[in-house]
């Protein structure tokens, strides 16, 4: 790894920018994502910054099952993100479809549509679990396991 790449890698791990997208969630996971950014939990102390546009983000925090209407949008948002990019499935719905499995307008978990790097289950996920998940993802970027597939 050259010096430049090392700097890029260092800044990516120390300050990942995230975007949050609700692809049909019940809001439970979304308010917990916001809660994890506010004073009690304060995800920002790990350098995580919430961004408004996918073009600025490294990590997509996706919550909720994928509904038929949102599917194209989710894909579009993912394609707008710059490489390398990571998707974190937040909540049981995002992991598998959860309680909404089998409903006619629900496609299932996020991994039906996008490659997912980390799954954080829970209905809703507690902010502690979100922090744990994000920190683990960052650690795996720093010391990638042998056969990790990034993005």
């Amino acid at each position, binding site marked *: *790894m050259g010096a430049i*790449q090392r700097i*890029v*890698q260092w800044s990516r791990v120390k300050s990942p920018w995230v975007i949050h*997208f*609700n*692809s*049909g*969630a*019940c*809001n*439970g*996971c*979304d*308010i*917990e994502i*916001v*809660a994890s950014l*506010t*004073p*009690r939990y304060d995800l920002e102390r790990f350098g995580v910054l919430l961004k*408004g*546009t*996918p073009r600025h983000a490294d990590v997509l925090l996706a919550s*909720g*099952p994928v*509904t038929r*209407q*949102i599917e*194209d*949008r989710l*894909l*579009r*948002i993912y*394609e707008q993100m710059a*490489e*390398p990019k990571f998707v974190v499935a937040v909540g049981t719905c995002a992991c598998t479809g959860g*309680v*909404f499995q*089998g*409903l*006619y*307008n*629900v496609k299932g978990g996020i991994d039906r549509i996008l490659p997912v790097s980390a799954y954080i289950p829970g*209905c*809703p996920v*507690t902010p502690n679990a979100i922090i744990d998940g994000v920190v683990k993802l960052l650690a795996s970027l720093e010391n990638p396991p042998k056969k990790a597939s*990034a*993005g």
Partner: protein
Amino acid sequence: MPDFGNVQIPVGPQHPALKEPESFLITLRGEKITAASVRMGYNHRGVEKGAEGRTYTQDIYLVERICGICSHSHGTAFIQAVEEIAGLDVPRRAKYIRMLVGELERVHSHLLWLGVAGHEIGFDTLLMYSWRDREVVMDLLAAVSGNRVHYSMNTVGGVRRDVDSALAETILKGVDRLEEQTKYYIQVCSEETTVIKRLSGVGVVTHEDALRLLVVGPTARASGVARDIRKDDPYLAYDELDFKIVTSDHCDVYGRTLVRLGELMESYSMIRQIVKNMPDGPITVKAPRKIPAGEALSRYEAPRGEDVHYVKANGTEKPERVKVRAPTLANLQAVSHMLRDNNLADMPIVIAAIDPCFSCTDRAVEIDRADSGPRDRMDWGRLRAHGIDFYRSRGVDFTELNRSLTRRMKKL
């Protein structure tokens, strides 16, 4: 200056000002909004149909997950209808516990709203403060129900967990702390010139329009419509509590802020009454697995307004039909009215002021009227190809660059 006529701007479904996927089509003349329309359905999952295929007990958990913010409201509204059909006499203690969770939920929802409203007007300090204090009520909810967000306290015929005296003490202490903080927010919102100036006269709905557009909840009460299901059609044991309906005649976003803050204070006093007067006795009655045929309509004053559930039973263990009318659906009609003649910059706070909850609302499916004229919609594939061709025809081609970048990144 040249007149550019009307300009249409799509906002959403992914937009920093929207917390949920919903899309608005805003028509602008200069800075002023001349028309706005809403496109829903991004959050439509098909909960109503799904509820028909599951048993009543399973449905409690499904219905709760219509919305994570007013989860107890949906759960209770649904279960009230089921209990009415089954003719169950729910113990008074269970009713009190349901009210307790209901009011705690209102507190958490209003504090959440206060923070979001602060964020939308660029007052992020308020967001951080109110969300810090909101953690107090989240802790109480977690202590009462075992979960921070989906409480799942209800079961057919009562509640699943009891409240003991030690917990009652904790609740009273937490409420004292919250009350103190809320007084501070009331002071901030009634003295800070920035807040008053930013919110006054924005998103106006006059008293007459509020009645005409049938808005509900704090949005209606801020236009002087004293309508509250807890008073008008008391459910649970609200007729045993002493509280008043908070209204305001500001008719704008500022009024909606004052109403919500006032309701917080009312809720604290209600929680105290509930905890102090909690009757003894069992918390559930035995419920049959199969619910006899019949139908019922149940109304519940959710934090955002009147929530209506309709349940039709056919004598089996699964309902035949469940219909939900969430409060945001009633208020959404008024949003395009509120937005008209406001500045584009006011759009986020006007939308936020009804405290929209689209996951609640998205029960509808769009029906295209055959006579509404042709619509040119590109699907994702066509749009993508169009974008690439557009740039290629102008001599810009990113294909090679993209490939080499991806290759290099993969090596990292």
